[in-house]
């Protein structure tokens, strides 16, 4: 597996040629065509914002929300970066789609046995030591493949070398705990449709906070309920006993 791989997408270098999408479609055997939004036939898409082109794709989070949300573990984060999906496990509940902060998974709505589709960071290519198809196809170097740590250093270098060209932020460095797809932008990210309010904390912690209380609820709850049962039961017993004793003494008096 080795180092955690990543992509560095430099929006200033992208010319919108769509070579990444074309290569992606060949690699994943998807129908041809230029698509502006993610779909079942586009695991990456290119949208334009005032002359700037933004690639959309699964961000391959370090601590992915979808992986934590899936009830059956059909989604899995690999040590070398990709978030993979196993359709044989999937029950089709769509909680991953609801949970994903980047709205990535696409559902096979037309199928009678639907699952999800999304980018897998060319996991089979990575296993062979190859870069992703999109990075290999990019003619301008706007999408660069490499070890995540190296790419973070390179991104920092690019920003410091030409501070006028970039906003001082690497999107994905720490957002939702860090992702394997990193972006550099010449304009504030929110202007390009990025959600910059997701925070630094991995989303799964939000539900983990609640789930971690479950053992306590079970432990404390069962003892408390059993205790209440015992006390109220005892109270009933005592009342019954006292009642019969009263009757007994009445008998004696009469006798």
């Amino acid at each position, binding site marked *: 597996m080795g180092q955690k791989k990543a992509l560095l997408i430099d929006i200033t270098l992208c010319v919108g040629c769509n070579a990444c999408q074309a290569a992606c479609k060949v690699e994943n055997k998807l129908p041809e065509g230029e698509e502006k939004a993610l779909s079942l036939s586009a695991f990456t898409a290119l949208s334009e914002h005032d002359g700037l082109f933004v690639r959309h794709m699964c961000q391959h989070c370090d601590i992915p929300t979808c992986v934590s949300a899936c009830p059956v573990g059909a989604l899995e984060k690999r040590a070398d970066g990709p978030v993979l999906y196993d359709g044989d496990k*999937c029950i*089709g509940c769509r909680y991953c789609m609801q949970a994903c902060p980047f709205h990535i*998974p696409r559902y096979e709505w*037309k199928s009678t046995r639907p699952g999800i589709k999304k980018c897998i960071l060319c996991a089979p290519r990575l296993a062979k030591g190859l870069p992703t198809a999109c990075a290999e196809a990019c003619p301008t170097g706007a999408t660069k493949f490499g070890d995540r740590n190296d790419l973070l250093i390179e991104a920092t270098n690019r920003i410091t070398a030409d501070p006028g060209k970039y906003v001082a932020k690497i999107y994905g460095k720490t957002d939702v705990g860090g992702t394997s797809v990193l972006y550099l932008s010449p304009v504030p990210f929110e202007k390009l449709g990025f959600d910059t*309010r*997701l925070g630094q904390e991995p989303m799964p912690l939000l539900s983990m906070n*609640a789930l971690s209380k479950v053992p306590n609820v079970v432990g404390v709850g069962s003892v408390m*309920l059993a205790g209440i049962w015992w006390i*109220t039961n005892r109270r*009933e017993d005592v009342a019954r006993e006292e009642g019969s004793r009263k009757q007994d003494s009445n008998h004696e008096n009469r006798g």
Partner: protein
Amino acid sequence: MKTFKFPRITFWGVVATTLILLGVGAAIARFTLGLGATTNLSDEFPWGLWIGFDFLGIGLAAAGFTIVAAVHLFHARQYEPIVRPAILTAFIGYLLVVLVLVIDLGRPDHFWHPLVMWNPHSVMFEITWCVILYTTVLSAEFAPIVLEKFNLHAPIKWIHSVSLPLMILGVLLSTLHQSSFGSLYLIVPNRLHPLWYTPLLPILFFISCIASGVSMVILETLVLSRKGRTLLPAALRANLAKITAVALAVYLVVRFQDMFSRHALGELKHLTYHSAAFYFEIIVGFVIPFILLLSHRIRNSRRGLYVTTLMVLAGFAANRMNTAITGLESYPTHTYFPSLLEVLIMTGIAAIGFTAFTLIARYLPIFPDMPQPEPDEHPFSSLSPAVEGE
């Protein structure tokens, strides 16, 4: 003994049968054509009406664990007569929710996967386990009613010997399950509107389910007690109403305190799509019923309780639907409205629930110490194509 006669045709019977048949037809369409062709669900709105309906069913089923806890764990024996109706409500509620979940799942044939493929980090995983375990507990709590009918006393004894741990387990599972439906949305702080998103969602879901569960019990005792035969003395019913009022008050305090500390109250300054939904939910379902239930006269009046419990249930439904749907919409760009088929499947399943309750209440000893119910003029008395005695 009763003699079997052909089902008498009643208005509610026809309505229920029609709804069930339409629902079955819609379900067949859903399974043959797929979710995309039959629902308005989409990549933007992967969850819709059915999830909201699940919340509702589970919330009404809260009648089961609250009354079981009160009677069998806290020894409030005076409520004994409503234990069985409450367990029946919960049992039917959970079975219907399982049914809806199976229809909602993309791959229903894989519904058993969470049992063997574990992901304890997933709220959905916890929910699946709670549903399965609590439905099992409910069937064990319900089994004596069936066994009694057929005079099978040995198995009743077995169940009775484990009844205490079983009931404790049931209450714990309910507590976890009711709150974990709220936890489902903890993971979407970026999407759920601030009027509904709060880290306290699980706690708020739990408090409100007590109000709705007890209201459901009150409503049932009102509907089922008629013609001079009362399921529960009026004084005890008034006590249940008091419990509802307390739950509503606690809910309002926690909710508004939380909104205040999260600075979400500002969202209420202007009347928007979302604030209107919020106002309806809070005023109709929580504030007005709370104020009404403070009155001694209303707590002791059948009509007063009818109105207030229906308001609580409506507000509860609005709260769950707002959390599941409205709060995730961003009006007017991203909205969701259920398709006709989604609605038909939901109404069909609701009709199955009402019919099942009426039929089971008629044939099984749900009300052991009372004469068999007589059909009368009450609108709810014949919800189904029921078989009449005599």
